[in-house]
């Protein structure tokens, strides 16, 4: 084997080989051990901490709580899901949550497209870097700080009200405010993938389109948009799922609005019904799986 050639002293026997070198050589000859050492930690994390937790969630969703003692009854039953499907409140809240997530995604896409296009294709390379930093910095500030900042902005008689012409004329707290603040919070997650996608788009494609007679509008629709669709979808996975699971922003600026996240939170805390919370939490998981399957069908993921 290779070791025989390795062990042979080289020339004047000057080959000094420390233990690290010997270990490297041994690893070089054992590919399986190398792979195991590389993947052991991440695989442990993925299987136990991540998939394990998800499995517990699904299993506990099938349990119930004894209404009298408040103890968890560990017998599999579909009661929780039956309640969710039949009770109109939950259907309304689920639909509202999906609506909020969809609205946030659409708003962010509309803002991010021109912004990312400016950053990637119009701004000078030197300014480009600063724009990326400017997009990223809000992510360094605490989520709560930003949400409460919007609470102040949207307060009755606050700056937004004055913008609309006096106290009480602004949107105030509620569903609209929730969409607005979530769109603000997740905007960077939409801009960055689109920016990355546009940066990969060669300038010559835009020039070729103009060269062949197309004005800016057609170039954008026929050349830029098809090329960035995978990026938009990547961004939408972020904005959609982050919005779907949110329950803090709603509490801060949503007024009485309830989303799936709130119901989960209430069932964990006040209602002390962990199994029902778990059942509720499977709704966004299933919606996201459905969304990803639909995206995959469209073929957009292959171009990522």
């Amino acid at each position, binding site marked *: 084997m290779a070791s025989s050639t390795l062990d042979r002293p080289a020339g004047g026997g000057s080959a000094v080989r420390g233990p690290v070198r010997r270990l490297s050589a041994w690893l070089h000859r054992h590919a399986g051990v190398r792979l195991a050492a590389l993947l052991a930690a991440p695989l442990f994390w993925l299987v136990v901490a991540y998939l394990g937790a998800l499995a517990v969630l699904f299993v506990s969703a099938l349990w119930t709580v004894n209404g009298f003692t408040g103890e968890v009854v560990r017998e599999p039953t579909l009661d929780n899901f039956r309640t969710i499907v039949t009770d109109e409140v939950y259907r309304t809240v689920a639909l509202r949550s999906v609506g909020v997530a969809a609205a946030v995604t659409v708003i962010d896409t509309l803002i991010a497209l021109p912004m990312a296009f400016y950053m990637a294709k119009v701004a000078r390379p030197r300014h480009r870097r600063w724009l990326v930093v400017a997009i990223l910095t809000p992510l360094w500030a605490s989520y709560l700080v930003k949400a409460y900042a919007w609470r102040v902005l949207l307060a009755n008689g606050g700056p937004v009200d004055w913008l609309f012409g006096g106290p009480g004329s602004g949107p105030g707290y509620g569903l609209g405010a929730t969409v607005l603040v979530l769109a603000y919070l997740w905007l960077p997650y939409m801009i960055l993938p689109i920016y990355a996608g546009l940066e990969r788009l*060669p300038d*010559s*494609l835009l*020039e*070729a*389109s*103009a*060269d*062949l*007679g*197309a*004005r800016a509008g*057609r170039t954008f629709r*026929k*050349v830029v948009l*098809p*090329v960035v669709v995978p990026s938009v979808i990547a961004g939408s996975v972020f904005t959609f799922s982050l919005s779907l699971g949110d329950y803090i922003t709603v509490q801060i600026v949503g007024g009485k609005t309830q989303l799936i996240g709130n119901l989960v939170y209430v069932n964990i805390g006040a209602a002390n019904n962990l199994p029902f919370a778990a059942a509720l939490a499977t709704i966004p998981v299933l919606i996201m799986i459905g969304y990803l399957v639909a995206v995959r069908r469209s073929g957009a993921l292959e171009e990522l």
Partner: protein
Amino acid sequence: MSVGPATPAVTLRGLRKSFGTVEAVAGVDLEIADGEFFSMLGPSGSGKTTVLRLIAGFEPPTAGTVLLGGRDVTRLAPFERDVNTVFQDYALFPHMTVRQNVEYGLRVRKVSRDERRDRAAEALRSVRLDGLADRRPAALSGGQRQRVALARALVIRPKVLLLDEPLGALDLKLREQMQVELKALQREVGITFVFVTHDQEEALTMSDRVAVFEHGRIAQVGTPAEVYERPATPFVAGFVGTSNLLGGDAARTVLGREGTFSIRPEKIRLVGPPTAPGRGAASDAPELELSNPTAEETSAAGRVAEVVYAGATTRFVVDLDAGARLVVIQQNLTTSSAEVAALRGTRVRLTWRTEHAVAVPVPAVPTPLVKESAHAYR
């Protein structure tokens, strides 16, 4: 093909373009005749690509005017100009099939569907790509992409076709094949071709006329023969072909004339010692005599410093006694590689027809060595 009384297809007047402090194009005046195959030749950063982009309208010039068919288009957008470009990276739309790529320009011009399909098919046939119409560019080879880019530009029947180093990404065999095809295609369609390249051989073999660029200016415009045989400056002599310059004392001693002269390496014959190895060069030394400048033939003595065997030819680098270095290229008609290799270090005599030493005017002001910028080449 000289510029006749007809309106030139492209006219450039006092064209300048600066990127920041770098002047990529420093005053270009040029007329390109209708139907001409015109090449712009120069090293990286010499401004040739920038001139092409100014003609296409991708950049506005800092000063000067661009006329297409006599019409001032300096302030017009690319989509308002009757020129089309074949890009260096081909710039095919990756999400469209070959046919959709070719039809793009027709679709923009609202050509009916039937006519669009016919013209696209015809264009693809002219570049011998029929049968690949439904493929995506990613599924094509470099040479095929190149042809799609050509078809896409030609299908619109522009007055002028601009080609930005279109063969640069191809390997040698394919490049030579495409050179022949491009030239045939140009003759067939009769469209004016403006062809940017840094490959002097490519420019010489394909063009009706060549403009040699140096530091954002045109150093010389002429037919390939003029540019090759009568270079206007030492730079042109060096860039188009191998630089063999005799100047100063060397010119005085060897040619008996004042000035700088260029001799093409294939015009020089190596009249050396016998090629059989073993015979000393010293025995030939008495025969070597200095040149007689008035005769039909000029000759000079020197020593072979380097021998590069290249199959069909051999390059000799000869240090003249008069103090210059000349490159000689000889066909290996009867000699073998061992025989030419044995000449290294031997004394030889070089002869050429006196008329082949061409006087090269040296510019009064030496060209400044401007830093080449990435921008200028973009």
